[in-house]
């Protein structure tokens, strides 16, 4: 074999060896890299879900899934009216002269327990602190009375069509009660009021929210709609 041919064969062999090594390394590392990428994006993400289900015949449903990371990145970019750099400016007039920060400070430093309990014909209200959560439960019964007025109106009418509607309305009137349940981690509340006196730090609240565990934050149920706002690590709503 001529000398040039031997050199060429050695070159090709050397190249083939390096190529085989590189290919083997790539094949070995690629799945690991992909796995690392997948796991980092799936475990760290926290999702805020909103679901509104209408109980009418059309089956209207709204589902919103927001990654908290996304919200945290976008919020500082919004500078409009009262919202600047993730903070909302509030005035004392917005709170009807009530010093909310002082009230929250009192709630924060106090032990677990019920702070407000109101039971009336119109509504039941309960505000409590329990296991690091601020709980607000409201049961609004005013709709029942409101429907009662409508029923009187139908009674007075002589129109046949309206009389036909009466039994249906009176049936729904009994269930016309709305329930609102809010459960917010105290850390989130603290973060919200951590900015200056006249500011709400929404960005800090979002960060605190993403650090907290899975929780159902808001639940509203009435005879027309069911609203749920909750936090978990899944990127799809249930």
């Amino acid at each position, binding site marked *: 074999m001529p000398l040039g041919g031997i050199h060429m064969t050695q070159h090709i062999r050397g190249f083939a060896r390096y190529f085989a090594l590189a290919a083997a390394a790539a094949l070995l590392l690629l799945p690991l890299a992909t796995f690392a990428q997948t796991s980092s994006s799936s475990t760290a993400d926290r999702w805020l879900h909103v679901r509104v289900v209408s109980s009418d015949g*059309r089956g209207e*449903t*709204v589902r919103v899934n927001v*990654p908290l*990371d*996304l919200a945290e990145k*976008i919020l*500082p970019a919004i500078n409009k009216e009262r919202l600047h750099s993730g903070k909302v400016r509030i005035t004392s007039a917005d709170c009807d002269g009530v010093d909310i920060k002082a009230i929250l400070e009192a709630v924060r430093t106090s032990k677990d327990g019920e702070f407000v309990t109101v039971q009336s014909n119109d509504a039941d209200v309960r505000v409590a602190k329990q296991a690091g959560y601020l709980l607000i439960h409201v049961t609004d019964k005013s709709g029942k009375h409101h429907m009662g007025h409508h029923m009187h109106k139908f009674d007075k009418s002589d129109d046949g069509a309206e009389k036909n509607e009466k039994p249906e309305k009176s049936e729904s009137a009994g269930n016309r009660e709305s329930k609102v349940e809010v459960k917010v981690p105290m850390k989130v509340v603290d973060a919200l009021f951590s900015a200056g006196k006249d500011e709400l730090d929404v960005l800090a609240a979002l960060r605190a929210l993403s650090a907290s565990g899975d929780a159902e934050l808001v639940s509203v149920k009435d005879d027309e709609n069911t609203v749920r706002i909750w936090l978990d690590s899944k990127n799809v709503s249930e």
Partner: protein
Amino acid sequence: MILLAKVALGFGTTLAVAGAYTFREGVIRVDVDEFRQGGSHLHMWVPAAAVPMALRLVPKHHLHCASFQAREAMPVVRAMFHELRNYPNTIFVEVTDGDQHVRIATEFGKLAIDVTEPGENVHLRVPITTVEDVFTQLETAGLQSDIRDGKDDDKDWRN
């Protein structure tokens, strides 16, 4: 014969490379179907890479105008689409109302908007990177316009 084969190979390779370059950023897909008499049926596939190129051909004053109008929303949109790249397959909004259905999602790195109702279907797929490119170009056009206006102001001031 061999020469002809070489020419064909060269032509084929050029076509393949050109195709790969044109479609490297994916495809923008628009499907509109109106289910009524005389309703339009539009099915459009556009290489996403063509959009930033086409923007370069748009007269600058139009770009400046668009940039000025979108100025307020620009930082939000940029931040949003930059982050959306981290969520390549996600449903963000889904609304169902009887026969009507609206869905805003990302599918394989594309922004997907679907509107379905009895009389009309609209499906849109746009690569997120393309939207980012478009907004970057708009932003650049706005900046250039600002710089130019600043120079003009200087000129006025000197006069």
